[in-house]
Protein backbone atom coordinates (compact mmCIF):
# COMPACT_ATOMS: atom_id res chain seq x y z
CA UNK A 1 0.00 0.00 0.00
CA UNK A 2 2.68 2.42 1.09
CA UNK A 3 4.59 1.69 -2.09
CA UNK A 4 1.63 2.70 -4.12
CA UNK A 5 1.32 5.95 -2.25
CA UNK A 6 4.96 6.96 -2.66
CA UNK A 7 4.96 5.84 -6.26
CA UNK A 8 1.94 8.01 -6.96
CA UNK A 9 3.55 10.90 -5.15
CA UNK A 10 6.70 10.53 -7.24
CA UNK A 11 4.66 10.59 -10.43
CA UNK A 12 2.74 13.64 -9.36
CA UNK A 13 5.67 15.63 -8.12
CA UNK A 14 7.46 14.90 -11.37
CA UNK A 15 6.39 17.73 -13.60
CA UNK A 16 7.40 15.83 -16.72
CA UNK A 17 4.53 13.38 -16.38
CA UNK A 18 1.91 16.06 -15.84
CA UNK A 19 -0.01 17.93 -18.47
CA UNK A 20 2.57 20.42 -19.71
CA UNK A 21 2.67 23.85 -18.18
CA UNK A 22 2.60 26.58 -20.75
CA UNK A 23 6.04 28.23 -20.98
CA UNK A 24 4.39 31.55 -20.34
CA UNK A 25 3.62 30.50 -16.75
CA UNK A 26 7.24 30.35 -15.65
CA UNK A 27 7.85 33.78 -17.07
CA UNK A 28 4.70 35.04 -15.38
CA UNK A 29 5.89 33.59 -12.07
CA UNK A 30 9.15 35.49 -12.36
CA UNK A 31 7.42 38.63 -13.46
CA UNK A 32 4.75 38.64 -10.73
CA UNK A 33 7.40 38.20 -8.03
CA UNK A 34 8.71 41.53 -9.13
CA UNK A 35 6.56 44.01 -7.25
CA UNK A 36 7.06 46.63 -9.91
CA UNK A 37 5.67 44.55 -12.75
CA UNK A 38 2.62 46.30 -14.15
CA UNK A 39 -0.69 44.74 -15.12
CA UNK A 40 0.05 45.72 -18.70
CA UNK A 41 3.35 43.87 -18.72
CA UNK A 42 1.77 40.74 -17.30
CA UNK A 43 -1.19 40.97 -19.66
CA UNK A 44 1.11 41.35 -22.64
CA UNK A 45 3.03 38.26 -21.60
CA UNK A 46 -0.07 36.08 -21.18
CA UNK A 47 -1.71 37.41 -24.33
CA UNK A 48 1.29 36.31 -26.38
CA UNK A 49 -0.06 32.76 -25.96
CA UNK A 50 -3.38 32.97 -27.75
CA UNK A 51 -4.69 29.50 -26.99
CA UNK A 52 -3.92 29.96 -23.32
CA UNK A 53 -5.54 33.40 -23.28
CA UNK A 54 -8.70 32.02 -24.82
CA UNK A 55 -8.89 29.29 -22.17
CA UNK A 56 -8.32 31.76 -19.35
CA UNK A 57 -11.05 34.06 -20.65
CA UNK A 58 -13.49 31.19 -20.97
CA UNK A 59 -12.97 30.27 -17.33
CA UNK A 60 -12.97 33.90 -16.21
CA UNK A 61 -16.42 34.22 -17.78
CA UNK A 62 -17.77 31.13 -16.05
CA UNK A 63 -20.55 31.60 -13.49
CA UNK A 64 -18.05 30.77 -10.73
CA UNK A 65 -17.05 34.41 -10.89
CA UNK A 66 -19.74 37.01 -10.92
CA UNK A 67 -18.63 39.02 -13.93
CA UNK A 68 -20.67 39.26 -17.04
CA UNK A 69 -17.97 39.99 -19.58
CA UNK A 70 -14.27 39.67 -19.08
CA UNK A 71 -13.00 40.24 -22.59
CA UNK A 72 -9.30 40.91 -22.21
CA UNK A 73 -6.48 39.41 -20.18
CA UNK A 74 -5.67 42.73 -18.56
CA UNK A 75 -9.30 42.99 -17.48
CA UNK A 76 -9.07 39.48 -16.05
CA UNK A 77 -5.92 40.41 -14.12
CA UNK A 78 -7.56 43.55 -12.74
CA UNK A 79 -10.88 41.88 -11.83
CA UNK A 80 -9.65 38.49 -10.66
CA UNK A 81 -6.09 39.25 -9.57
CA UNK A 82 -2.78 37.79 -10.74
CA UNK A 83 -3.04 34.76 -8.49
CA UNK A 84 -6.35 33.70 -9.94
CA UNK A 85 -5.30 34.27 -13.53
CA UNK A 86 -2.13 32.31 -12.91
CA UNK A 87 -4.06 29.42 -11.35
CA UNK A 88 -6.53 29.41 -14.21
CA UNK A 89 -3.64 29.35 -16.66
CA UNK A 90 -1.99 26.48 -14.85
CA UNK A 91 -5.14 24.45 -14.43
CA UNK A 92 -6.71 25.17 -17.79
CA UNK A 93 -5.11 22.09 -19.27
CA UNK A 94 -6.63 20.02 -16.46
CA UNK A 95 -10.02 21.61 -17.06
CA UNK A 96 -9.64 20.74 -20.72
CA UNK A 97 -9.27 17.09 -19.72
CA UNK A 98 -12.20 17.35 -17.31
CA UNK A 99 -14.55 18.90 -19.81
CA UNK A 100 -13.86 16.14 -22.27
CA UNK A 101 -13.56 12.99 -20.20
CA UNK A 102 -15.56 13.77 -17.12
CA UNK A 103 -18.40 16.16 -17.65
CA UNK A 104 -19.90 15.25 -14.29
CA UNK A 105 -16.77 16.21 -12.36
CA UNK A 106 -16.40 19.38 -14.39
CA UNK A 107 -19.95 20.37 -13.46
CA UNK A 108 -19.32 19.50 -9.81
CA UNK A 109 -16.24 21.77 -9.82
CA UNK A 110 -18.01 24.58 -11.63
CA UNK A 111 -20.94 24.32 -9.22
CA UNK A 112 -18.62 24.35 -6.20
CA UNK A 113 -17.04 27.52 -7.60
CA UNK A 114 -20.47 29.11 -7.92
CA UNK A 115 -21.41 28.08 -4.38
CA UNK A 116 -18.12 29.28 -2.89
CA UNK A 117 -18.48 32.66 -4.57
CA UNK A 118 -22.01 33.00 -3.17
CA UNK A 119 -20.92 32.05 0.35
CA UNK A 120 -17.90 34.36 0.29
CA UNK A 121 -20.02 37.30 -0.88
CA UNK A 122 -22.83 36.63 1.56
CA UNK A 123 -20.36 36.56 4.46
CA UNK A 124 -18.55 39.60 3.03
CA UNK A 125 -15.21 37.78 3.05
CA UNK A 126 -12.14 39.25 1.40
CA UNK A 127 -10.66 37.64 -1.73
CA UNK A 128 -13.86 36.07 -3.09
CA UNK A 129 -12.19 35.36 -6.42
CA UNK A 130 -9.42 33.38 -4.75
CA UNK A 131 -11.99 31.39 -2.80
CA UNK A 132 -14.01 30.66 -5.94
CA UNK A 133 -10.85 29.51 -7.67
CA UNK A 134 -9.91 27.20 -4.81
CA UNK A 135 -13.40 25.68 -5.04
CA UNK A 136 -13.13 25.31 -8.80
CA UNK A 137 -9.91 23.36 -8.22
CA UNK A 138 -10.84 21.52 -5.01
CA UNK A 139 -11.22 18.04 -6.54
CA UNK A 140 -8.42 18.40 -9.07
CA UNK A 141 -6.72 15.41 -7.44
CA UNK A 142 -9.49 13.21 -8.83
CA UNK A 143 -8.54 14.11 -12.40
CA UNK A 144 -4.91 13.22 -11.71
CA UNK A 145 -5.85 9.91 -10.08
CA UNK A 146 -7.98 9.03 -13.05
CA UNK A 147 -5.17 10.01 -15.45
CA UNK A 148 -2.34 8.28 -13.61
CA UNK A 149 -4.04 5.26 -12.06
CA UNK A 150 -6.68 4.14 -14.50
CA UNK A 151 -6.75 0.62 -13.10
CA UNK A 152 -7.08 1.72 -9.48
CA UNK A 153 -9.78 4.13 -10.54
CA UNK A 154 -11.92 1.21 -11.73
CA UNK A 155 -11.29 -0.52 -8.44
CA UNK A 156 -12.27 2.64 -6.52
CA UNK A 157 -15.51 2.97 -8.47
CA UNK A 158 -16.37 -0.65 -7.79
CA UNK A 159 -15.76 -0.23 -4.06
CA UNK A 160 -17.88 2.91 -3.80
CA UNK A 161 -20.70 1.00 -5.37
CA UNK A 162 -20.37 -2.27 -3.52
CA UNK A 163 -19.56 -0.98 -0.05
CA UNK A 164 -21.44 2.31 -0.28
CA UNK A 165 -18.36 4.36 0.56
CA UNK A 166 -17.51 7.97 0.12
CA UNK A 167 -15.08 8.27 -2.78
CA UNK A 168 -12.39 9.45 -0.38
CA UNK A 169 -12.72 6.32 1.77
CA UNK A 170 -12.44 4.09 -1.28
CA UNK A 171 -9.39 6.02 -2.50
CA UNK A 172 -7.74 5.52 0.90
CA UNK A 173 -8.37 1.78 0.76
CA UNK A 174 -7.08 1.35 -2.76
CA UNK A 175 -4.30 3.94 -3.00
CA UNK A 176 -3.49 4.70 0.62
CA UNK A 177 -3.97 8.35 -0.22
CA UNK A 178 -6.90 10.43 -1.44
CA UNK A 179 -7.71 13.15 -3.96
CA UNK A 180 -7.27 15.91 -1.38
CA UNK A 181 -3.70 14.85 -0.63
CA UNK A 182 -2.98 14.33 -4.32
CA UNK A 183 -4.35 17.82 -4.93
CA UNK A 184 -1.99 19.14 -2.29
CA UNK A 185 1.03 17.50 -3.95
CA UNK A 186 -0.10 18.93 -7.23
CA UNK A 187 -0.47 22.46 -5.83
CA UNK A 188 3.07 22.19 -4.46
CA UNK A 189 4.53 21.20 -7.76
CA UNK A 190 2.66 24.08 -9.38
CA UNK A 191 3.76 26.57 -6.70
CA UNK A 192 0.18 27.60 -5.99
CA UNK A 193 -0.09 30.02 -3.05
CA UNK A 194 -1.23 28.67 0.35
CA UNK A 195 -4.61 30.33 0.10
CA UNK A 196 -5.39 28.02 -2.82
CA UNK A 197 -3.48 24.92 -1.77
CA UNK A 198 -4.86 24.74 1.79
CA UNK A 199 -8.53 24.60 0.78
CA UNK A 200 -7.65 21.99 -1.86
CA UNK A 201 -5.70 19.90 0.65
CA UNK A 202 -8.14 20.18 3.56
CA UNK A 203 -11.63 20.58 2.11
CA UNK A 204 -12.55 17.27 3.77
CA UNK A 205 -10.76 18.08 7.03
CA UNK A 206 -11.09 21.76 7.79
CA UNK A 207 -9.38 21.61 11.18
CA UNK A 208 -6.06 20.72 9.54
CA UNK A 209 -6.00 24.06 7.78
CA UNK A 210 -3.70 26.36 9.73
CA UNK A 211 -3.33 29.59 7.79
CA UNK A 212 -6.48 29.80 5.68
CA UNK A 213 -9.14 28.09 7.72
CA UNK A 214 -11.94 30.43 6.65
CA UNK A 215 -11.25 29.89 2.96
CA UNK A 216 -11.00 26.15 3.56
CA UNK A 217 -14.30 26.20 5.46
CA UNK A 218 -16.00 27.98 2.55
CA UNK A 219 -14.75 25.41 0.05
CA UNK A 220 -15.85 22.61 2.37
CA UNK A 221 -19.34 24.09 2.67
CA UNK A 222 -19.49 24.76 -1.09
CA UNK A 223 -18.72 21.08 -1.70
CA UNK A 224 -21.47 20.03 0.73
CA UNK A 225 -24.02 22.38 -0.82
CA UNK A 226 -23.33 21.34 -4.37
CA UNK A 227 -23.53 17.66 -3.42
CA UNK A 228 -26.83 18.39 -1.68
CA UNK A 229 -28.18 20.07 -4.81
CA UNK A 230 -27.38 17.03 -6.94
CA UNK A 231 -25.67 19.21 -9.55
CA UNK A 232 -22.84 17.45 -11.38
CA UNK A 233 -21.20 14.19 -10.33
CA UNK A 234 -18.20 13.90 -8.08
CA UNK A 235 -17.73 10.15 -7.88
CA UNK A 236 -20.18 9.18 -5.16
CA UNK A 237 -23.70 10.38 -4.50
CA UNK A 238 -23.33 11.00 -0.76
CA UNK A 239 -23.54 14.47 0.79
CA UNK A 240 -20.56 14.91 3.14
CA UNK A 241 -21.19 15.88 6.75
CA UNK A 242 -20.99 19.61 7.49
CA UNK A 243 -18.01 19.92 9.81
CA UNK A 244 -18.76 21.69 13.07
CA UNK A 245 -15.54 23.66 12.87
CA UNK A 246 -16.55 25.03 9.45
CA UNK A 247 -19.99 26.01 10.75
CA UNK A 248 -18.37 27.82 13.69
CA UNK A 249 -15.60 29.53 11.82
CA UNK A 250 -18.08 30.91 9.26
CA UNK A 251 -20.59 31.78 12.01
CA UNK A 252 -23.40 30.14 10.06
CA UNK A 253 -27.02 29.97 11.14
CA UNK A 254 -30.27 28.61 9.74
CA UNK A 255 -31.25 31.85 8.00
CA UNK A 256 -27.95 32.19 6.18
CA UNK A 257 -28.07 28.55 5.10
CA UNK A 258 -31.63 28.94 3.82
CA UNK A 259 -30.71 32.03 1.80
CA UNK A 260 -27.64 30.29 0.41
CA UNK A 261 -29.72 27.33 -0.80
CA UNK A 262 -32.17 29.65 -2.57
CA UNK A 263 -29.46 31.73 -4.18
CA UNK A 264 -27.48 28.68 -5.20
CA UNK A 265 -30.44 26.99 -6.89
CA UNK A 266 -31.10 30.22 -8.74
CA UNK A 267 -27.48 30.45 -9.98
CA UNK A 268 -27.31 26.82 -10.99
CA UNK A 269 -29.65 27.46 -13.89
CA UNK A 270 -26.89 29.67 -15.31
CA UNK A 271 -24.18 27.16 -14.50
CA UNK A 272 -26.06 24.41 -16.33
CA UNK A 273 -26.40 26.57 -19.43
CA UNK A 274 -22.72 27.47 -19.27
CA UNK A 275 -21.71 23.85 -19.05
CA UNK A 276 -23.93 22.92 -22.00
CA UNK A 277 -22.42 25.74 -24.06
CA UNK A 278 -18.91 24.53 -23.27
CA UNK A 279 -19.79 21.04 -24.44
CA UNK A 280 -21.47 22.20 -27.63
Amino acid at each position, binding site marked *: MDDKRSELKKIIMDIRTLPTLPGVINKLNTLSENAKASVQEMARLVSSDQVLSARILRLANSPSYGFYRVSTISNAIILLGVNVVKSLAISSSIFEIMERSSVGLWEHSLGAGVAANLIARKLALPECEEIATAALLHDIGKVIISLKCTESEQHIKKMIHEKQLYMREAEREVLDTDHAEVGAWLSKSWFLPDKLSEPIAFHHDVQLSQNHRIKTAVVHLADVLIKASGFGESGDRYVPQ*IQKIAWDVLKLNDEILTELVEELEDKLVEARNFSLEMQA
Partner: protein
Amino acid sequence: MQKIPLMCATSGMKLARDVFRNDSPVGMPVCGKDTVLTDSLLARLDHLEVKSIYVEGHPLWSEGEKTLDEILCDLDLRFEKVRNDPLTSKLHSIYTAFLKNSMGDSSGRQTL
Protein backbone atom coordinates in the same frame (compact mmCIF):
# COMPACT_ATOMS: atom_id res chain seq x y z
CA MET B 1 -38.97 28.93 -10.57
CA GLN B 2 -38.64 27.64 -14.11
CA LYS B 3 -36.93 29.04 -17.17
CA ILE B 4 -39.21 28.68 -20.16
CA PRO B 5 -39.08 29.74 -23.81
CA LEU B 6 -41.13 32.90 -24.38
CA MET B 7 -43.27 31.05 -26.92
CA CYS B 8 -44.47 28.71 -24.16
CA ALA B 9 -45.42 31.54 -21.82
CA THR B 10 -49.10 32.34 -21.32
CA SER B 11 -50.94 35.21 -19.68
CA GLY B 12 -51.42 34.72 -15.94
CA MET B 13 -47.90 33.40 -15.29
CA LYS B 14 -45.84 35.47 -12.89
CA LEU B 15 -42.24 36.56 -13.59
CA ALA B 16 -39.70 35.16 -11.14
CA ARG B 17 -36.85 37.37 -12.43
CA ASP B 18 -36.37 40.67 -14.20
CA VAL B 19 -36.46 40.37 -17.99
CA PHE B 20 -33.71 42.00 -20.07
CA ARG B 21 -33.53 42.87 -23.71
CA ASN B 22 -31.90 40.12 -25.85
CA ASP B 23 -31.65 38.00 -22.69
CA SER B 24 -28.51 39.91 -21.72
CA PRO B 25 -28.41 40.72 -18.00
CA VAL B 26 -26.90 44.17 -18.50
CA GLY B 27 -28.70 47.47 -18.82
CA MET B 28 -32.18 48.26 -17.60
CA PRO B 29 -34.71 45.46 -17.24
CA VAL B 30 -37.62 45.79 -19.65
CA CYS B 31 -39.98 44.15 -17.22
CA GLY B 32 -39.68 43.55 -13.50
CA LYS B 33 -39.85 40.48 -11.31
CA ASP B 34 -43.32 39.65 -9.89
CA THR B 35 -45.13 41.09 -12.93
CA VAL B 36 -48.11 38.97 -14.01
CA LEU B 37 -47.95 38.32 -17.75
CA THR B 38 -50.69 39.55 -20.08
CA ASP B 39 -51.14 38.97 -23.81
CA SER B 40 -50.09 42.49 -24.68
CA LEU B 41 -46.99 42.22 -22.48
CA LEU B 42 -46.07 38.92 -24.14
CA ALA B 43 -46.38 40.55 -27.55
CA ARG B 44 -44.12 43.37 -26.41
CA LEU B 45 -41.47 40.99 -25.06
CA ASP B 46 -41.58 39.08 -28.31
CA HIS B 47 -41.09 42.32 -30.18
CA LEU B 48 -38.03 43.05 -28.03
CA GLU B 49 -36.64 39.66 -29.06
CA VAL B 50 -36.71 38.19 -25.58
CA LYS B 51 -36.23 34.46 -26.04
CA SER B 52 -36.82 33.05 -22.58
CA ILE B 53 -38.12 34.12 -19.19
CA TYR B 54 -38.12 32.87 -15.62
CA VAL B 55 -41.57 32.26 -14.16
CA GLU B 56 -42.74 31.20 -10.72
CA GLY B 57 -43.63 27.64 -9.91
CA HIS B 58 -43.12 24.91 -12.45
CA PRO B 59 -45.82 25.37 -15.09
CA LEU B 60 -44.29 23.32 -17.90
CA TRP B 61 -43.51 19.64 -17.65
CA SER B 62 -41.61 17.73 -20.27
CA GLU B 63 -41.79 14.04 -20.88
CA GLY B 64 -39.53 12.12 -18.48
CA GLU B 65 -39.12 15.01 -16.08
CA LYS B 66 -39.12 14.03 -12.44
CA THR B 67 -42.06 14.67 -10.17
CA LEU B 68 -41.67 16.33 -6.79
CA ASP B 69 -41.91 12.96 -5.05
CA GLU B 70 -39.12 11.51 -7.17
CA ILE B 71 -36.96 14.58 -6.58
CA LEU B 72 -37.47 14.38 -2.82
CA CYS B 73 -36.63 10.71 -2.89
CA ASP B 74 -33.33 11.45 -4.70
CA LEU B 75 -32.61 14.10 -2.10
CA ASP B 76 -33.11 11.60 0.73
CA LEU B 77 -30.75 9.15 -0.98
CA ARG B 78 -28.04 11.79 -1.26
CA PHE B 79 -28.36 12.58 2.45
CA GLU B 80 -28.51 8.95 3.49
CA LYS B 81 -25.15 8.94 5.37
CA VAL B 82 -25.69 12.19 7.27
CA ARG B 83 -29.32 12.13 8.37
CA ASN B 84 -28.33 11.79 12.02
CA ASP B 85 -25.86 14.64 12.00
CA PRO B 86 -27.51 17.71 13.52
CA LEU B 87 -25.95 20.33 11.21
CA THR B 88 -26.24 18.40 7.98
CA SER B 89 -29.81 17.35 8.69
CA LYS B 90 -30.67 21.05 9.01
CA LEU B 91 -29.51 21.40 5.41
CA HIS B 92 -31.65 18.43 4.49
CA SER B 93 -34.78 20.06 5.90
CA ILE B 94 -33.96 23.39 4.25
CA TYR B 95 -33.57 21.66 0.89
CA THR B 96 -36.77 19.68 1.33
CA ALA B 97 -38.72 22.84 2.13
CA PHE B 98 -37.11 24.69 -0.77
CA LEU B 99 -38.00 21.99 -3.28
CA LYS B 100 -41.60 21.68 -2.07
CA ASN B 101 -41.97 25.40 -2.26
CA SER B 102 -40.34 26.02 -5.63
CA MET B 103 -42.00 23.11 -7.41
CA GLY B 104 -45.36 24.25 -6.11
CA ASP B 105 -48.06 21.68 -6.10
CA SER B 106 -48.17 19.96 -9.43
CA SER B 107 -51.89 20.36 -9.98
CA GLY B 108 -52.86 21.86 -13.30
CA ARG B 109 -49.61 20.83 -14.90
CA GLN B 110 -49.25 21.08 -18.61
CA THR B 111 -47.12 18.91 -20.86
CA LEU B 112 -44.46 20.74 -22.86
